[in-house]
Each structure stands twice: as structure tokens, then as C-alpha cells.
């Protein structure tokens, strides 16, 4: 009898344990958050504190940053990530790459998110330059810098040497050198950007990131198509069309391309094609990331 009572007690305690753990951690999530992310220790202190486990500390910092990106996906509010959070995120990746400057993943994710979503291209490039210095065998890092300089910062001249560097490194496409030359002419920026992104996809294995880049390519291809139409229209009629529909009506293009981000296209006064979803390709999160399945 006593034994049965004891077993029941243990079962009950086990049940309460599971329930209370769930309830407590749910309630914990509803507490004002942010303190966790608010600071990153300065790298020299981290380096000393990590003792002989600097590589491991770098891995942990990187995983922290990945967990944050994963959690941010589920957020309802817009923008999903606040500005100070992006700064924290950058600091974390910076610290991770100070502990192990040869670690590729932090650079890879910094490049995938900071210029596109956080509008922190300069900061991303600083980080990537550190990576490019250490990982001197890796063509992708100087390539990313070159792309960011060209696409986000409009610094075509600055982009060229990075692309040349990328083309020289093992695995780098020799075509990059000719792209660097093309940058001297300010024409066909959209097509150059498409080529760039196709190169990026080539260096990307991760499916969800690949999808992210492919959507960006699709959006740029639509814009490139419309831009060509606008040019043709200008040649034919001597003025810019006022709406994109005019291009279809006058049989310049067969049908309007679909904006993969769900926006509609319009034509600015200077003949530039812009989408309502994006002044410069609206940032968004990858729908699925390997990490969170």
C-alpha cells in the first residue's frame, strides 16, 4: 500500500514537473526580453576568458546569432528585427570572428542579412574584409564585398579590385574579372546585378538561402525586362511611358512580369522601373531554414 502510494507520488511529481516546466518557460518568454541580447563582451576580454576554448566560444556566439535569426522569423511586427538588434547581431558575429577569424559561417550569414535586411552594408563589408584577409584562399568573401560595393553603395570603382581578387582565388570564376571591367561603364546595372547574384547562388549550398537569392534574381530579371521595354519605348515614341501597362498596350512586351515579392511595378519620372514592394528589393526572411526543422 505504502509502495503504491510512493509510486503514485513519483508519477504525480513527474507530471507536475513537465507541466510546470512548460508553463514557466512559456511565461518566461512573455517577460520583457532584450536583456539577453543587449550586450556582447569586447573581443579582447572574450579571448582571455575563453581560455583554450576560443574556437568553441566562437561557435557558441555564432549559434546564438543563428537562434536569434530563427526566432525573428516568427515575429508578427514589422520590421521583424529592430535596429539595435541588428547592431547586437553584427557585434556578436564580429566577436565570433575575432575569436576565430577563419570561421566562414558568420561572414556568410552577415552577408546574407546585413546589406539586404538591415541596410548595414558598410558594416557588413568591414566584417567581410576581415574574413577576406584571413581566409585568403576563399573567393566568395572578396566577391561579396565587390557585389555590396556595386549594388548597395554604388561604388563601382571600389568594387572592381575586390572582384579581380575573387577571380584570382581558387574556385573563383574568371568571368568576374570581365565583370570588374564592365563596372567601368555605368550601363546595364540590373543585368550586372543579375550576373552577380547568379554567382552568389553558385557559391551557396544551403537550400533556403539559395531560394532567397533566386527570388532576388527573379525580381531583378523582371525589372531588367521592363527596363529594356522602357528603353525601346523611348526610342519608338521619344518619351518614357507613364505606366508599365502602356508597354503591353503598345506591344513592346507581351505581358507584365510578376513581382516575386507580390508588388506592382511603376515607372518613375526619370524612366526608372520601381516596384511598390521595394525601393531596392524589399528585404524578407527565408521561409525555411535548415536549422529550425
Amino acid at each position, binding site marked *: 500500500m505504502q509502495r503504491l502510494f510512493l509510486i503514485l507520488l513519483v508519477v504525480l511529481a513527474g507530471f507536475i514537473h513537465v507541466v510546470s516546466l512548460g508553463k514557466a518557460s512559456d511565461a518566461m518568454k512573455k517577460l520583457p526580453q532584450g536583456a539577453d541580447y543587449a550586450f556582447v563582451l569586447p573581443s579582447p576580454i572574450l579571448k*582571455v576568458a575563453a581560455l583554450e576554448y*576560443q*574556437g568553441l566560444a566562437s*561557435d557558441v556566439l555564432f*549559434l546564438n546569432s543563428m537562434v536569434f535569426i530563427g526566432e525573428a522569423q516568427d515575429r508578427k511586427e514589422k520590421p521583424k528585427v529592430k535596429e539595435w538588434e541588428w547592431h547586437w547581431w553584427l557585434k556578436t558575429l564580429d566577436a565570433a570572428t575575432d575569436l576565430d577569424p577563419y570561421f*566562414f559561417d558568420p561572414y556568410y550569414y552577415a552577408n546574407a542579412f546585413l546589406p539586404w535586411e538591415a541596410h548595414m552594408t558598410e558594416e557588413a563589408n568591414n566584417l567581410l574584409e576581415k574574413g577576406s584577409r584571413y581566409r585568403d584562399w576563399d573567393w566568395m568573401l572578396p566577391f561579396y564585398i565587390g557585389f555590396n560595393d556595386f549594388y548597395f553603395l554604388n561604388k563601382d570603382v571600389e568594387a572592381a579590385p575586390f572582384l579581380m581578387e575573387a577571380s584570382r582565388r581558387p574556385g573563383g570564376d574568371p568571368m568576374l574579372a570581365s565583370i570588374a571591367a564592365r563596372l567601368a561603364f555605368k550601363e546595364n546595372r540590373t543585368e550586372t546585378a543579375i550576373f552577380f547574384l547568379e554567382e552568389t547562388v553558385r557559391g551557396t549550398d544551403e537550400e533556403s538561402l539559395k531560394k532567397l537569392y533566386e527570388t532576388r534574381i527573379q525580381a531583378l530579371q523582371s525589372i531588367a525586362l521592363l527596363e529594356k521595354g522602357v528603353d525601346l519605348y523611348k526610342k519608338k515614341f521619344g518619351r518614357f511611358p507613364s505606366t508599365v501597362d502602356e508597354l503591353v498596350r503598345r506591344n513592346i512586351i507581351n505581358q507584365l512580369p510578376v513581382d516575386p515579392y507580390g508588388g506592382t511595378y511603376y515607372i518613375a519620372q526619370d524612366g526608372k522601373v520601381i516596384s511598390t514592394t521595394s525601393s531596392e528589393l524589399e528585404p524578407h526572411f527565408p521561409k525555411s531554414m*535548415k536549422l529550425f526543422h
Partner: protein
Amino acid sequence: MKTLWPIALVTFKEGIRNRAIYGITLFAFLLFGATALVVNMVPREAGKVAVDMALSTISFTGLLLVLFVGINLMAKDLDKRTIYTILSRPISRSQYIFGKFLGMVLLITITVGILSLLAMVAIVLLKMTHAEYFERFSWSLIALAVFLTMLMLILLTAVSFLFASFTSTSFITLALTIITYIIGQSISGVKTLIESPPQALGFTVSPVTANLVKAAYYLFPNLSLFNIKLQAAHDLPVTTSYVAWTVLYGVVYICLAITLAALIFRKKEFP
């Protein structure tokens, strides 16, 4: 050597029988298991993280062994007064110390060997499933990293023997050894930090602190010298001269510490 060997063997057997070793083994298994879990969360450089985890597990488990088994082995004879029966035999006190140390070296070597085998299994398994992320990877560099870790653990053991020779309880030895480990791993980082220009630091270092750090730098063993986990994880070049000088430094420090321990132990008065 003939008199040392039996003591070494007894020490080794005692170490194996220590209950702490079960806990340490379980811990190592958990860490190797965690490697698989963590590696799956890293999208690209899975190989690097796997090597990081494996090497860190080996060195941390080895550290636990030195701290919780090694120091106990030395202290037990004193605490339980069995030292009298040993010293009544025809062996000198120095021989006793050297024998004990040899036994610990044996224990560390075999433990690190077993851990390396486990680590190898973990890495090979991950390499089979994530082959494309093991581009920069070298077994020989990993082996070298393990060897240097072993040397570091033996050095720490020698230092713990030195502490045990003049302290009265094993707890003080443990505390001193832990402090030595932390200082040894961080001292070269701290030295670089305080020697960097004040503009970069954001504060000025007083000359007293600077000298104190410099003194500690030469007094304490520089354990971070033996750490090439980063190089092993990324297959970065490691020069022969680095290996040669580091091994020389390690061996000389070990000899100094253990000889000093024997000298002090000879003069020690037992209660």
C-alpha cells in the same frame, strides 16, 4: 627505473579504480554526442565545428582527470597515512615522487588515447554524412593538436605535484592548480592586451600591473602555447620550429617542476 615502475603501475591502477573516472567518461561521451547535435546546426563549416568540439572535449576531459583524479592520487597517501608504509620500503622520497608522476603520465596518455579514438569515430561519422564541409581538414594536424594537449596536461600534472609537495591538504593543491591553469591559458593574452597602445585599450595600465603581469608570464607555465586547436580546425600551416620549441619548453618545464617537487618533498615533515 626498476624501482619507479612498480609505483607507476600501482598509481595507474589506483587512478583507473577511482570513481571520478566514471563520471569523467560519461561526461566525455555526452560531449561527443553533443558534437553531432551542434554540427547539424552549423550550415557551412561543419568540419571546423566538429574538430573544435572533439579537441575541446579531449582537453577538457583531460583537465578534469588531472584535477580530480591526479591530485587525489597524490593526496590520498598523505591523508590516509599510507605514505608511511610506502616510505618504510627501500625507496627514496624522490623515487616515490617520480614513480607517482610516471603513473599519472601513463594514465593521461592512455585516457587521451581512448578519448582520441572516440573523437575519431565521431569525426569519421560526421565526415561520412557531411563530406562536402570537410574541405580543409587534416588528420595529422589534429593528431599534433592532441599530442600538444597531452603535453599540456602532463605539464599541469607536474605543477600540481609541485604544489602537493609543500601544501598540507589536497584542497589547496586543487585550488592552486586551477589558478595555474587559468593564468597559464590566459597570461599571454593578458600580456598582449596590456602591452597594446593605450589608445587602443581606452585606459592606461599602471607600471605595477604591467610588471606583475610580466613576472607572472615568466613564472607560470604558458599553457596557451600548446593550443593549436584553431590551426587544426582550419588546416592552417604549423611550422616545425614552433613544434620543436614548444615541445622543448614543455619538457624543460615538466623536468623543472617535478625535480623541484622531489627536492621539497625530501625535506617535508609528515604529521
